[in-house]
């Protein structure tokens, strides 16, 4: 049964299985385990990023396409919801229109990008997507009548999902049941389903062909797989999942702007999460997202403690200042490449697979 849900892709390491279970239940019970708005926001962001990163993993880890335009689709999803609810009001219909419209746009764009990827070599493609993503971000801030420009859009959700909706008088297990909680569980359900779907896709015959293409595109073509078709399909699917992640983000934040969903910074975060978690594993997305987002969200708090503790040493204190949190994030980038070349998942699986010396 479990095996079927996971599409036969077992974690392949006991530690990993325990970790995944902990993450799953931690997220499922987050509102009860970790009280407070901040914690809930972090948990929700993890849910969104798990989907986003897993969708990117399909592209990068399984198909071997390096694209910097992934946040473009994420942004399209978020803008889809944002624009639709701004224009049509906070209704379920608007959510549906926004999601479908965004999916359609992503489909077309990813088709174009995917086809282009075959025309130029890999690094060039990566650099082109980088430029395209930057241009798209600028475009989004230029079309301010539509997108709210640099300032972005703030919008409302249908009553059921807005924070002011409180159906019950009493708290449930010490937590107020309100629209925010309902939104959280909507996100949770969506994330679970989407990740399982991705897991299924990468473990299908299709997924195996993608891996073959990653390994040796030329030979994949020679044994009868039309590489164009597979690559394009993979681009499209991953773009669609990213779009859905964008929709999730918008539902949760009730705000969207170019920096929120389109920035290069998010792209780098996604890349880093894939690598920390372990490329080509899907599970890595979950592990990486939790590790990274928790670190990112609480790094400044941690540094504050550190810099207070070292206030006697001005130089160290300056480096540990919470204002310099990015320095430590940068270090995280470097160290993760050093120490997790195959990601957490790869590490754990290798530990398991290594023959006793």
């Amino acid at each position, binding site marked *: 049964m479990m095996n079927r849900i996971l599409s036969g892709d077992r974690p392949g390491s006991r530690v990993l299985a325990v970790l995944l279970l902990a993450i799953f239940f931690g997220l499922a019970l987050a509102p009860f385990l970790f009280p407070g708005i901040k914690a809930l926001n972090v948990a929700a962001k993890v849910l969104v990023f798990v989907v986003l990163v897993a969708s990117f993993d399909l592209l990068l880890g399984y198909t071997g396409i390096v694209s910097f335009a992934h946040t473009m689709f994420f942004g399209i999803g978020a803008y889809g919801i944002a624009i639709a609810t701004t224009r049509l009001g906070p209704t379920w219909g608007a959510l549906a229109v926004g999601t479908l419209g965004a999916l359609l746009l992503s489909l077309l764009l990813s088709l174009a990008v995917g086809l282009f990827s075959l025309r130029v070599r890999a690094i060039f493609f990566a650099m082109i997507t980088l430029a395209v993503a930057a241009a798209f971000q*600028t475009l989004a*801030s230029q079309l*301010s009548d539509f997108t709210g*420009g*640099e300032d972005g859009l703030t919008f*409302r959700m249908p009553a059921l999902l807005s*924070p002011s909706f409180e159906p019950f008088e009493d708290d449930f297990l010490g937590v107020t049941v309100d629209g925010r909680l309902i939104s959280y569980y909507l996100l949770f359900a969506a994330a679970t389903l989407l990740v399982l779907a991705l897991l299924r896709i990468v473990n299908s015959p299709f997924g195996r062909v993608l891996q073959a293409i990653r390994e040796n595109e030329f030979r994949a073509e020679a044994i009868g797989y039309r590489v164009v078709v597979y690559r394009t399909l993979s681009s499209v699917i991953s773009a669609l999942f990213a779009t859905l992640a964008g929709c999730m983000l918008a539902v949760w934040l009730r*705000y969207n702007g170019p920096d929120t969903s389109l920035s290069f910074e998010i792209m780098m975060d996604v890349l880093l999460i894939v690598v920390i978690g372990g490329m080509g594993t899907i599970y890595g997305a979950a592990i990486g997202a939790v590790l990274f987002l928790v670190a990112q969200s609480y790094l400044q708090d941690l540094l504050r403690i550190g810099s207070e503790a070292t206030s006697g040493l001005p130089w160290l204190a300056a480096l540990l200042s919470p204002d310099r949190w990015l320095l430590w994030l940068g270090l995280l980038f470097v160290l993760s490449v050093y120490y997790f070349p195959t990601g957490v998942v790869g590490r754990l699986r290798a530990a398991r697979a290594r023959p006793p010396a």
Partner: protein
Amino acid sequence: QSEIRIAHVYSKTGPLEAYGKQTQTGLMMGLNYATGGTMMVNGKKLVVLEKDDQGKPDLGKSLLAAAYSDDKADLAVGPTSSGVALAMLPVAEEYKKILLVEPAVADSITGDKWNKYIFRTGRNSSQDAISNAVAIDKPGVTIATLAQDYAFGRDGVKAFKDALKNAKLVHEEYLPTNTTDFTAGAQRLVDKLKDQPGRKIIWIVWAGAGNPFKIADMDLKRYGIEIATGGNILPAMASYKNFPGMEGATYYYFGIPKNPVNEAMVAAHYREFKSPPDFFTAGGFSAAMAVVTALKKTGGDTKANTLIKAMEGMSFETPKGTMTFRKEDHQAMQSMYHFKIKVDPAFAWGVPELVREIKPEEMQIPIRNQR
């Protein structure tokens, strides 16, 4: 409850780090000054919680929510960027707590995105633009504008244009925000201006990367074209040294306002940092003055409705003289300063000398919110 908790959400890091830090400095100095060094109002201690929005709207939004809810902040001050501010406005409404906006400038904060929990001590774009218009608006003057091609630039130019009464505006040039080479834009401006009679001015409103003042290197003088612009932080005014005599209107320069509050702030700042306070320091200071004045008025009561009642129409002293929260949209009405640049080797920047204080009454700042 013996504490009053004030959350200051600002860009402690990120592209606006330098600005945000000035605000924080000003805010703390202001609170100190307003409470006579006690940090107490009506027996309650003022506690400032710093929150770093990193210039990201989504982050600012969740930080504000966390501040109001997890940290039980009574009111909030900030943020640095307009985008963050706009994302934060609904949070104040949701939690029914005051958000005192400083220094984000977008008109829509006190315009169509406004709600009754929003106050602003910072100047808005219209105030900036209109004061500049008032400063250079003379009969016989021909003006062309140079602005960034996005909402901020276009709004600024529009407000500026609407405020012009006498001068003739012949061209609006908008360039991409990331422009580095201004030759093409300058050439277009020159083509439009050079054959005009009388005084010719290019009015620049620009924020961020790129240095539009480079257009002066194309030897605009030979066509008799001048450059005008508003004030800025001190490092940015270094390039003003190239434009002795340049006119414009600014929000604040430490040498301009003559009042006890400003003198106290400048003195305190020199004492602490060996340097004069800057643009945003004054803003933070003003915000602190507004907060303390309001709290004193309510006797330390932090209930939002009480505070709103106290603050609407409230006047308070700031380094820029007296400000008044306009009842309609809670925007602080304040003086602006018409300046002329003088080059003084003692300063690393072009020194703006006061030509004239533009009083709030002289500027018709439109009310843009629907109440």
